[in-house]
């Protein structure tokens, strides 16, 4: 018997839909077995992690809060990843976005007006885009690998945050703790929007998912992204400028990460401190892949990832699994979704009992 992966002529549509679902299901199964094997109530842990956040309505707002930044960042990354422009520095762009917005908040302290929050949001988007422009510039000007440069900039951004909240931006009334002054009501978005338990960022994320979907599926730009990503040589002949694509992909994904950052800080935390960076920028990379680089997929995947975060904490109190559990589940899920990619591009061909001579021949 011999198992081979044979290339499909067209990526399988069915597999594209089925594999993420399969990956999540298989993660539950593997997780239950592993945690049972090391002495926990595995099935219960899986239930608490994946189902409780859905069935317990008081957990919905938590899921929404976590999902909003994940989806927003992942949407931008979908564009970049489709064009094979690898921005893995979204965490840094998220931070710089929040910092830029907080900078506006610092300047508008004591002022009032409807225009302050929009200014902060714009500053957030610009800040994130600016931070992403550095790798874009290095890539297009010097051919510097954007994976490495964007990653390095995450750590620079972290230090920038540490410097600002412990230094120039420290709240004079904050009992000398490293944190900015709390935003004033005119600098805050509501915690939850439209009478739902969900943060405003989630609605923006859903709306933008639709926009991204339409743009990616219908527009010239979306076509360009796909062509450059799938067939770079053909794209060059067709007149697509790869450098433009790098700029666009970076600015869009950086801007989205920045938007996520300022939304998080203006609607949820209300200030910046050392605890602000939460790794959303890295997790969003998982989200974009789990969502198959499709804007609507990213929205769904963002919710799934948010559920595992929330459920991981539920499971801690109820099943007493350690906090590391959620991480292990997330990693397993990502491994499986990446592994199952192969089924989209290839089909499994199993040859039963081929003649010995033939097998030997092909082995030689």
């Amino acid at each position, binding site marked *: 018997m011999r198992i081979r992966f044979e290339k499909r002529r067209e990526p399988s549509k069915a597999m594209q839909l089925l594999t993420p679902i399969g990956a999540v299901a298989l993660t539950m199964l593997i997780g239950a077995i592993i945690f049972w094997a090391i002495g926990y109530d595995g099935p219960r842990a899986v239930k608490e992690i994946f189902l409780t956040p859905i069935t317990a309505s008081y957990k919905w707002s938590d899921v929404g809060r976590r999902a909003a930044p994940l989806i927003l960042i992942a949407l931008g990354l979908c564009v970049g990843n489709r064009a094979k422009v690898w921005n893995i520095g979204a965490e840094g762009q998220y931070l710089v976005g929040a910092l830029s917005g907080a900078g506006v908040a610092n300047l508008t302290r004591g002022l009032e007006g409807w225009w302050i929050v929009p200014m902060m949001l714009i500053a957030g988007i610009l800040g994130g885009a600016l931070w992403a422009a550095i790798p874009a510039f290095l890539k297009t000007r010097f051919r510097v690998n954007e994976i490495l440069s964007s990653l390095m900039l995450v750590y620079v951004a972290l*230090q920038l945050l540490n410097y600002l909240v412990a230094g120039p931006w420290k709240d004079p009334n904050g009992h000398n703790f490293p944190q900015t002054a709390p935003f004033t009501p005119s600098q805050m978005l509501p915690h939850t929007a439209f009478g739902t338990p969900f943060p405003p960022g989630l609605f923006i994320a859903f709306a933008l998912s639709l926009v991204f979907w339409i743009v990616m599926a219908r527009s010239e730009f979306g076509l360009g992204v796909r062509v450059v990503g799938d067939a770079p040589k053909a794209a060059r002949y067709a007149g697509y400028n790869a450098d433009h694509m790098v700029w666009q992909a970076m600015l869009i994904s950086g801007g989205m990460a920045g938007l996520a950052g300022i939304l998080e800080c203006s609607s949820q935390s209300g200030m910046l401190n050392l605890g602000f960076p939460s790794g959303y920028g890295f997790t969003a990379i998982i989200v974009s892949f789990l969502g198959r680089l499709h804007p609507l997929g990213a929205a769904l995947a963002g919710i799934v990832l948010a559920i595992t975060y929330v459920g991981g904490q539920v499971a801690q109190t109820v099943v007493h699994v350690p906090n590391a559990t959620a991480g292990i589940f997330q990693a397993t899920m990502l491994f499986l979704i990446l592994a199952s990619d192969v089924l989209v591009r290839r089909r499994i061909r199993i040859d039963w009992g081929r003649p010995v001579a033939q097998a030997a021949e092909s082995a030689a």
Partner: protein
Amino acid sequence: MNLEFLIAALVTVVNVSTPILLAATGELVVEKSGVLNLGVEGMMLLGAIAGFAITFILGDPQYADTLPWLAPLAPWLGVVAGAIAGALGSTLFALMVLTLGANQVATGLALVIFGTGVSSLIGSAYVGLALTPFDQIFPDSLAQDPILKVAFGYSPLVYFAFIMVGAVYWFLNKTRAGLVLRAVGENDLSARSIGYSVRGVRFAAILFGGAMAGIAGSYFSMVITPLWAEGMTAGRGWIALALVVFAGWRSGRLLAGAYFFGLFMTLELYAKASGFSFLPSQFWASMPYLMAIIVLALMSARESGGAEAPACLGKPYLPDA
């Protein structure tokens, strides 16, 4: 400033640099073969807990009577366990990336999350325990001498790191196998067309990188601070990645770069302890990353057009595309 002071400072630099150097040496080989494994931090944590746990278990006094030779061997076996743990983590990466053609960036990040989670799960049983440090092999007359310790006062792993950098330099530049590995990293399709197994070469490179990261991890849990604490590598895996870039994918510069980074981190501490705080410490902390970016840009700006970076780095291998 006297000599003893400088030597003591140098010893600190070496201690700070060695784990980064170990991990970066492994990652260099991986990247030279055209693969970008971002999971260094995860593999380091796996190595850290495996090294600690195995050393602790084998060093248990209950074996002292029946197996008296085991205790002195325990730390060596611990390092081997660390290497194996790192290599196991990298095997997962290799299977995903090479066999199934998964995206390298995403798989590497998944490996970081995975390694962090698994190490903390296993490690919860070892919190609050301590080992004898695996630090000196030479007798006290050499290792504790205020001058001679600059050469003799280190853990065996420090010498191992030196040897490995040399070995990797020799392997990459002087051996046929090294040539093949670089060829695979520069142009996988033509390497395949002249009959080399691209997947085989890359698999071996990834395993080596994982083992080195695992050893680097065990340097934390066995040498610097012989204890286990969750997330104890505290981001050194990312600095190792920056170092490979900073070194321009050259093993010689890797050694210099590791000590340069180590010197930088140590200087910051000396500046603070001596009361010179002319720049915010966050500036110092971000320097390794900034320097890596600047080197990347400088390297690429030259005529050679960034030839140092392996051409296939991070790209999927698609023989039938």
